[in-house]
């Protein structure tokens, strides 16, 4: 038995105190309405109405059931409206992720902006690598995220591409630290501290290719994760540098932009193609703003390849 529907019939009969008028209001045949009320009476094991020639009068048990059923029907209406807003992305929990090293200020601004724009909804935010995010988006366990590019794009949609310039992290007493910027060619003979290639093979290769293009081929790659360990390695050995976004200043190391700003991390919001409900859009807008204002990222025109090769097949 559909209890909620039967309680609604019961409430109308109680309001009208008459089966015929109630049936007209409900657009039901009177015998059908009578059967439904009898079914409810059988279900509860009590008589709800005294049926007389003048109409239908609630019994004392019926009055008690009416009071309780109002509460049940109100709760059901609230549940329905919450579910509708949930489907519209107004409330509920958005499962989202950010990559490491985004900066506390940017993540805090993202959380604040999301709550302001989407009151009543929860943001379940985790720190995941780009590869973990694309896997979880595909599996349906993540709704939205912030990824570093290059990233495998099949089945995904992205927000605007934002750039974050990389600079050279040097020992404070490095001769190159005396200049306002570093010519990458001057790093010849040095090693480079980088995160493990397996974290993001495409980004790793892209970074080394851009370095080579601007005259710097490191003598060795030193695998390192995390800003603290990177700083420690650079402090302990003169022949090592790292390429990172501008970190908070700390004594002992110096950050210098490279001449021509040829290196940047590209970052964007991401969600499953075709799954951009209001909550995802609010997250994407809040994230885009937080990254621009608090992480120093900016949009830059994408460049077309200028020297396409015959095996590319199409002149782009």
């Amino acid at each position, binding site marked *: 038995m559909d209890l909620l529907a039967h309680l609604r019939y019961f409430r109308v009969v109680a309001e009208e105190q008459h089966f015929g008028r109630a049936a007209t209001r409900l657009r039901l045949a009177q015998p059908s309405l009578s059967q439904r009320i009898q079914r409810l009476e059988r279900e509860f094991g009590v008589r709800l109405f005294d049926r007389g020639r003048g109409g239908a009068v609630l019994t004392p048990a019926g009055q008690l059931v009416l009071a309780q059923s109002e509460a049940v029907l109100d709760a059901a209406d609230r549940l329905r409206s919450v579910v509708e807003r949930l489907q519209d992305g107004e409330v509920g929990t958005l499962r989202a992720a950010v990559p490491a090293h985004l900066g506390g200020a940017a993540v805090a601004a993202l959380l604040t902006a999301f709550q302001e724009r989407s009151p009543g909804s929860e943001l379940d935010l985790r720190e995941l690598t780009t590869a973990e995010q694309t896997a979880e988006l595909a599996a349906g366990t993540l709704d939205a995220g912030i990824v570093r590019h290059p990233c495998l794009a099949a089945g995904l949609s*992205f927000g605007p591409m934002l750039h974050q310039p990389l600079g050279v992290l040097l020992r404070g007493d490095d001769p190159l630290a005396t200049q306002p910027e570093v010519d990458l060619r001057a790093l010849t003979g040095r090693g480079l501290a980088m995160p493990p290639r397996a974290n993001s093979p495409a980004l790793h*290769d*892209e970074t080394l290719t851009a370095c080579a293009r601007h005259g710097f081929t490191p003598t060795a790659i030193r695998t390192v994760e995390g800003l603290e360990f990177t700083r420690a390695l650079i402090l302990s050995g003169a022949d090592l540098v790292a390429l990172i976004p501008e970190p908070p200043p700390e004594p002992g190391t110096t950050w210098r932009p490279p001449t021509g700003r040829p290196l940047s991390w590209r970052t964007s919001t991401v969600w499953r193609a075709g799954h951009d409900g209001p909550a995802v859009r609010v997250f994407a807008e809040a994230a885009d703003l937080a990254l621009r204002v608090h992480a120093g990222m900016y949009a830059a025109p*994408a460049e077309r390849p200028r020297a396409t090769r015959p095996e590319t*097949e*199409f002149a782009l």
Partner: protein
Amino acid sequence: MSEAVSPSSATTRRAVTRINAAFADAGVAGQLHALDIDSGASVSVAATQLTPTSSLHKVCLLVTLYREAAAGRLDRTRQIDIPAGERTPGLAGLAVMRDAVRMSLRDLATLVVAVSDNAAADILWRAVGFDAVNRTMAELGLTDTVAVHDMAAIRDALRAQPNLTDPAAFADISVLNPALTNRSTARQMAELFAAVWRDEVCSGETAEELRALLGLQAWTHRMASGFPFDDVRVSGKTATLPTLRHEAGVIEYPDGGRYAVAVFTRAASTASVLPAADAVIGTAARIAVDALRSP
């Protein structure tokens, strides 16, 4: 077809694991189908996933040209006058040549395989027709292999998207969406090459000529790079679109072993020069062929 003599399932499983690791290491998502042409044994990675074929569909076009010629419906030595203007642009062959020429259908086919000549391909698309190509694929049982675009249409779709280094813009490019463009699967592309080598497309002298034609490709940076052996023949055809790099072909060993292989990749990076993504096509093909050749 003779009964399939498959390599042991443990060998196949190991090969699939290594192929997936090689794809990840190269920063690509990939599909592969490798087929022992004589035993029917195979190694597959996501081989039935529909994928844009772009220039790989030129193989379907040439197969149809030779099948129609063998059936006497078309003369592959017919001369075509090709004026200087109105050629589909490209990066090699007639597409970049300046003056009028007169050339036979089969010599146009040679340019299509050798340097993926887009202008020559579109002249053949007009001579052979989409209907004949799609009908031929259906007759060969390759029902997921469908052509809707000639090379000019693909070029126009790419030109319409000004931002080919922005992954966010890629979702809008029709020629990267298999539902909207020339499409097939790794499995069916390998099966198409196997059909040519088994004389199922045509036979005799015509078939010999078609196989010789498919061995003329100039590029060796993809499939052939995985088989750096002087006594192993690699015939194949590449396809390239922003982030997509494919090749399908046949690997022939002097002991008689012959394997039809198709490798499709989609790279994370939007760079147009990406040697690791090219090379992994050879690496993956070699792992698969080694598994098929293992005792």
